[in-house]
Each structure stands twice: as structure tokens, then as C-alpha cells.
């Protein structure tokens, strides 16, 4: 979860706590994802117990996050709903709320983060009126962009996720050539995503806030603008591409190549060519340094114990250990912070010699780096699909390792272990068991 949304979640939670809405309630969180784990951590930090995380994905049900069971939503319907509070920090809030009401849930449901300004499941006149006003603002943004970049084509990267933008940029030349587009501007959310575009050499770039981007996207959809394209695998709501994952495992990169841009199966990606040299050479030991990257938006985290073991292992071998951080992220205990721009990162990890990261967009940014590269995956499924994140986000040329964390009394341990050993026998992923 990015800092802006985290702050919003924190503030909304404080309001809820202050009004007494949480006291003496059974607290549930709907939707297992990185954001819901952060909410669970926040609640536990404040001394509250989360009874369960609800998730429609059968692949996630029966597992745990820090001893919080993940169960199907129906399992709570026979409990006293007056005493329940379901918190939602997922962008599918509207669909989740509708689902719970249709199931007969009559307890309290709270949205703690407004991720999805496109959706409001209502046909009431005031809703339509409000959404028309939003659309009008979007059209004004579109006109402003058109005035600034006259007669250009506009490539919109609608979500602030480095990996999404990386692949949008990697296959953009193919799309531009296919559509005979010569002049274009890349529009992203936030500087980080704009830097990704810069790495690929795209000179005309515009940065918008998430809210402005959402409104611009709506205007592009409504007007069916011929001079704009929304380059994303699951936004906006009109994009049904992710349904392909309901029937087949399709790797993330292929979704961009074929599903977003309509290119052929074997179309080769372009690679970033603009890098900056790492400026911290004198403080970092060449070839004997490990750079860790423990933070991610799209996949759930892995436990602190795993990182402690990794840090301890390499420090015993005499290596320096750094944590790549940005914004308000903190380095892992016992490590040095590495604060470099995205353009410097490849140079930095090549100097270091080893990169070990939780699967995130940062791994895509340095996917061609010449160093030892290890990517760690939690043992869970991607979004509401039945596909493991390790399969969906697999990185060729990397050591792909699934971290399987269990509780000491987990009876399903052997079942999971057998499944992991079969996957390991295929030679595709490595496995770490952590109790």
C-alpha cells in the first residue's frame, strides 16, 4: 500500500476508534491482500484482535496471516452480526459490500480506503449527478493535456505500480509502430512511474495525482478518445482482460504483450537504456554486498523471521547488507539503508553483487541486472485467481523462491509441503519452510 493510502487508512481507522465503533465488536477484514495485512497489523498494534480475514478465493481459505484465519465470507453469517464490524481496504469495496448484503449480512461494513473512484453501485439521481461532475472534471484535464501536447497521442499508465509501468513501457514501441503513432506523451501517477518511462527514453512525460488520473481515464472512456490509450492489465473497470486468468494461467508479462497492446505472442520487449551510475561506490563493498528489498504493493509480505535469517546468514559470511528504501520506509534491523533513484538502482545492485527482493515492481526495474538475483514469493494466490503469485510473476533468469511459513500446530503443513516438493521437483521454484 502506498503511503498516501496508508495515511488515509490510518486516519479513517482513528475516526472509527474515536466513535467507539470498534469497541466490543468482532472485527473482520474482507479481502486478503497486502493492504488488509497492513490493516491487520495496525489493529493488532492498537491492541485489537482480528477474528478472521474473509476472502472469496478458495485457494486462500484455510490459510493464515499471523494466526488470523482466512475464511470464506459465508462462514460468519451464523454469528451475531450486530456484534460484527467488517473493514474493507480493497478497491472492490462496492462489490464486497453488495455481496455481503445479498448474503444477508446486516452488520456494520466500513470502507477505510477509497481506492476506486470509478465505482459506486447505485443508479440514484444524485449518484449519477455526482459522477457526471467527476466526468466533467476529467474532460477538463483531457483538454489541458491536449493543449499542452498538441496533436500527440496520450499513453496513460493509470496506476502507481512500478512493475505495471515497466511492462507498459517495454511493449509500448510495438504498440506505437502497430498504430503508426509518431508523437506521444506518457502520463503516469507519481515520479517513480515517470522515472520508469524515463529509463526507456520516453521524453515527453506528464505526472498526475491518482485522483486526476482516474478522472482523466473516465473522460477518455466516455469520449472513446481516439488519441489516448489506457495501458493497464486490469484498469479501468471496462477492461475485462483479467477474466482470462479465470480459465488459464497467463504470465503477467504476456498479459501486457498480448492482452493490453494486442501484440503477437513472441513479440520481444524493449529494455531500458537510460541509467545513472551509482554514486555510493566508496561506501559499499563491491561484489560482497547484499541489497534486500522487502517491500511490495501487489503481493503479501513475508515474515520478519525470514529476513532476520537472511541478514544473519550473509553477515556471518562477511557480507555487508543493505535494505533498499524510499520515502518513509525503514531499513530492516541490522542493515544499512540504500536510498537511490530508480535510474541508479541497477548500477547499485550490480556493484553490490547480490539482490534479494520480495516480488515487486522493483524486481522488474532491475530484471536485466548482471548480478545474483533472488526473488521471494509468499505462498499465496494472485488477487482472486487460483494461480500462485510465484507462477504469475515468475522471473526468468532469477532464482525464484517460495517462502512457505507455517505455524507450529498447523495440521495442513504436510499437505502444503507435498505440494511444494512437487513444484520443486519440476525445477521451477525453490522453497523455504519457516516455522
Amino acid at each position: 500500500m502506498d503511503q498516501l493510502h496508508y495515511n488515509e487508512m490510518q486516519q479513517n481507522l482513528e475516526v472509527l476508534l474515536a466513535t467507539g465503533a470498534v469497541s466490543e465488536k468482532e472485527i473482520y477484514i474482507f479481502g486478503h491482500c497486502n493492504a488488509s495485512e497492513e490493516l491487520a497489523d495496525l489493529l493488532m498494534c492498537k491492541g485489537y484482535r482480528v477474528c478472521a480475514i474473509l476472502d472469496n478465493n478458495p485457494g486462500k481459505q484455510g490459510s493464515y496471516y499471523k494466526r488470523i484465519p482466512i475464511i470464506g465470507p459465508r462462514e460468519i453469517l451464523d454469528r451475531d452480526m450486530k456484534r460484527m464490524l467488517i473493514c474493507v481496504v480493497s478497491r472492490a469495496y462496492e462489490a464486497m459490500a453488495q455481496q455481503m448484503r445479498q448474503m444477508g449480512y446486516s452488520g456494520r461494513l466500513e470502507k477505510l480506503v477509497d481506492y476506486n473512484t470509478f465505482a459506486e453501485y447505485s443508479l440514484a439521481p444524485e449518484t449519477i449527478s455526482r459522477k457526471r461532475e467527476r466526468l466533467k472534471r476529467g474532460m477538463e484535464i483531457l483538454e489541458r493535456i491536449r493543449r499542452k501536447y498538441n496533436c500527440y497521442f496520450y499513453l496513460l499508465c493509470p496506476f502507481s505500480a512500478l512493475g505495471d509501468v515497466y511492462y507498459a513501457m517495454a511493449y509500448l514501441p510495438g504498440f506505437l509502430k502497430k498504430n503508426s503513432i509518431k508523437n506521444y506523451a506518457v502520463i503516469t501517477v507519481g515520479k517513480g512511474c515517470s522515472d520508469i518511462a524515463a529509463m526507456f527514453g520516453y521524453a515527453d512525460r506528464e505526472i498526475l495525482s491518482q485522483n486526476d488520473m482516474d478522472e482523466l481515464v473516465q473522460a477518455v472512456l466516455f469520449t472513446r478518445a481516439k488519441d489516448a490509450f489506457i495501458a493497464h492489465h486490469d484498469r479501468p473497470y471496462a477492461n475485462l482482460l483479467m477474466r482470462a486468468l479465470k480459465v488459464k494461467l497467463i504470465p503477467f508479462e504476456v498479459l501486457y504483450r498480448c492482452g493490453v497492446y494486442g501484440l503477437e505472442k513472441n513479440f520481444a520487449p524493449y529494455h531500458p537504456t537510460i541509467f545513472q551510475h551509482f554514486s555510493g561506490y566508496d561506501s559499499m563493498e563491491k561484489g560482497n554486498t547484499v541489497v534486500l528489498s522487502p517491500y511490495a504493493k501487489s503481493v503479501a509480505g513475508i515474515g520478519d523471521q525470514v529476513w532476520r535469517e537472511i541478514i544473519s546468514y550473509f553477515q556471518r559470511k562477511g557480507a555487508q547488507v543493505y535494505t533498499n528504501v524510499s520515502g518513509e520506509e525503514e531499513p530492516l534491523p541490522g542493515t544499512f539503508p540504500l536510498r537511490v533513484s530508480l535510474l541508479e538502482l541497477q548500477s547499485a545492485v550490480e556493484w553490490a553483487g547480490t539482490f534479494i527482493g520480495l516480488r515487486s515492481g522493483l524486481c522488474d526495474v532491475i530484471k536485466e541486472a548482471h548480478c545474483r538475483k533472488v526473488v521471494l514469493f509468499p505462498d499465496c494466490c494472485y488477487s482472486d485467481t487460483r494461480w500462485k503469485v510465484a507462477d504469475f510473476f515468475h522471473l526468468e533468469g532469477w532464482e525464484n523462491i517460495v517462502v512457505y511459513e507455517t505455524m507450529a500446530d498447523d495440521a495442513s503443513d504436510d499437505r502444503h509441503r507435498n505440494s511444494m516438493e512437487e513444484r520443486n521437483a519440476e525445477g521451477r521454484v525453490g522453497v523455504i519452510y519457516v516455522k
Partner: protein
Amino acid sequence: MRCCKKMLRALERDLNCYDRVLLSETPALISVIGQLKLSEVSDEKLLVLSPNICQGQSQNITFRQISREETCQLTKLYFTYEFSDQFHFISRNDGNYASLYYMADAGILSPEEFVAALLS
């Protein structure tokens, strides 16, 4: 853009009665859905709206012809905001976002897989 109250009421009724409502201008897609053994793919009640079809019922799919004006109004509403996750506008005309059709074009999905994904 003005949506008449009658259309909105009808839309609300349809969203309550059906699990999924598809609006399509593409005769080829409607034909494929009509030929599909839907029970093998989905047990949902599906309503297909289009100016290019004949009224009818096939398995758990209802086909309803609507006017071009209604199609235009519904399309505009659809692209104003996400008013439901049960309603989708499907068009083969290459839009300005990703498309499930591209997966079929690239041979990643077979025609049957494409329809199964669409109705999932």
C-alpha cells in the same frame, strides 16, 4: 447525457433479476454465446441486450432486443462510472484499453476459453 427514469428503472430491475447483463453491438459474439452450452460454463442467469438480435431464450440466457437509442444511453452511462459489477459492455471495436479479444487473436485463448472467460 440524460438517462430517462424508465430506462434506469428497467436497468435496476434487470440487475436484480439477472446475475449478469451484457450489452453488445457485436453480432458475432452474440451468435457464439447463443450457440454455447452455457450450462457447461456457468450456472448464472444471463441477459444479453443488443440492437442486433431477436428476442428469445436459450438455456439460462435471455436475449432482448433494444433500440439504438437505448444502446447509446446505456453505453454512455456505462462509461460515466461503474454502477455495477454485473453489467458489461462488450464490443469488438478496438477501444482504448486492454481487451480479452486480443488474447483470442494472439491464440492465447481458444474461442471456447474466450467465452468462458467472458462469462466467468
